[in-house]
């Protein structure tokens, strides 16, 4: 099953490219630049999924204390952070020609995503500064839980904050999406979802090898 994943990623990515560049019609007002939408949203939704997985496995780690739960949380946070970084890159690329600004602070989604990115960057910093120990896994799990619960409150506060500054002018009109655009979006979301699974699987493999090597070292008295 897990051997299939890379092939599924390849096929779905090709389909997603076809969907975005050929199948989906060109947007009337924005023109071809709108096609970045499929990559942008495909990444964004899966980034949220990745952070939900961090939350879930952090909770599981605190409850049952299995080393593997912490590994899943750590690896998912890494992939989620990369996806969020790409969301924050593709967003301004799209915003510049369409909204005439790289970084519209007035958009609550963009600003919330930035805060999200900062939270999980802090998560990685915390992990990088600690030696492998149960304490590290516990600390990371606590941050994984607190960070995820913070997101809805960040979203609420930023929505109110932007509303009082100036009206929300920009709404990406994805509620009423042309059917073919919607299909292309779905394929892109699935493709990036599979990519997320694949990267998570690869990262977990590395982590497991690492901890196995560490075990061998300790057994043979070569520690340190």
């Amino acid at each position, binding site marked *: 099953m897990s051997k299939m994943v890379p092939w599924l990623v390849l096929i779905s990515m090709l389909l997603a490219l076809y969907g975005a560049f050929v199948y989906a019609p060109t947007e009337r007002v924005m023109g071809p630049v709108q096609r970045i939408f499929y990559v942008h949203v495909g990444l964004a939704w899966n980034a949220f999924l990745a952070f939900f997985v961090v939350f879930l496995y952090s909770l599981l780690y605190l409850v049952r204390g299995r080393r593997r739960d912490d590994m899943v949380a750590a690896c998912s946070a890494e992939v989620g952070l990369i996806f969020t970084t790409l969301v924050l890159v593709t967003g301004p690329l799209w915003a510049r020609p369409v909204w005439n600004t790289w970084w519209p602070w007035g958009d609550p989604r963009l600003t919330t995503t930035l805060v999200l990115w900062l939270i999980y960057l802090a998560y990685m910093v915390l992990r990088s500064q600690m030696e492998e120990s149960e304490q590290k896994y516990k600390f990371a799990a*606590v941050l994984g839980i*607190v960070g995820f619960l913070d997101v809805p409150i960040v979203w609420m506060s930023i929505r*109110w904050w932007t509303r009082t500054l100036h009206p929300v002018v920009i709404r990406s009109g994805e509620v009423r999406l042309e059917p073919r655009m919607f299909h292309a979006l779905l394929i892109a979301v699935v493709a990036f979802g599979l990519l997320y699974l694949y990267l998570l699987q690869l990262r977990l493999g590395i982590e497991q090898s690492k901890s196995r090597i560490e075990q061998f070292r300790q057994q043979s008295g070569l520690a340190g």
Partner: protein
Amino acid sequence: MRLLRQAGWIVWKDLLTEYRGKEAFLSTVFFAFLVLIIFNFAFSPGSESTPEVAPGILWVAFTFSGVLSLNRSFLMEKETATLEALLLSPLPRGTLYLGKMAANLLFLLLVEALILPMFAVFFNYNLLPFSATLALVVLLADVGFVAVGTLFAAMAASLKTREILLPILLFPIVVPVLISAVKATGALLERLEFGELIPWLKILAAFDLVFVWVSYWVFEYVVEES
């Protein structure tokens, strides 16, 4: 009742240590005061932008001095091995958290009580007509800030890079608190109606409830000795 009494002892212990030391409290106040002054130079005072930047400056001063005082909160406990003694005592972890949190909250509130009059003088505001509402905003924001801050300070205390790590962990999380506190304070300074404040107070209250409860629950994982 028992919980309150036990947490009360922790608060009493922390405040007594502060009272006997004093220099930490005074330097925190001095630091917050300096932040106000520095920002006064950065944005020329009395100019048209003052109403827009004043609440932000106030909360930057509170946040920075808050992080400084939080950093100390568990450092002394570690250095003198008080934390180990506290963990050995038959004190539930959650109670210990509530005690430390309340002590940090009181410390921060005292600092702010001294800073607010200085802010009023230097930025030329009369805070008295709405002092009760302002106190409510400050209290709600501080509870949220300290709730997460105490939890993270306990984590940071066992790391070498604690001074820099605490703000890195804390600032992204308290973004909603900062936004709400700044906007609510701004609304007060501009004498807007109370209705304008309600969404901000709601967000602050939601943050406080969620994070006091979560921190109370996870604190035991943070102080457990490895």
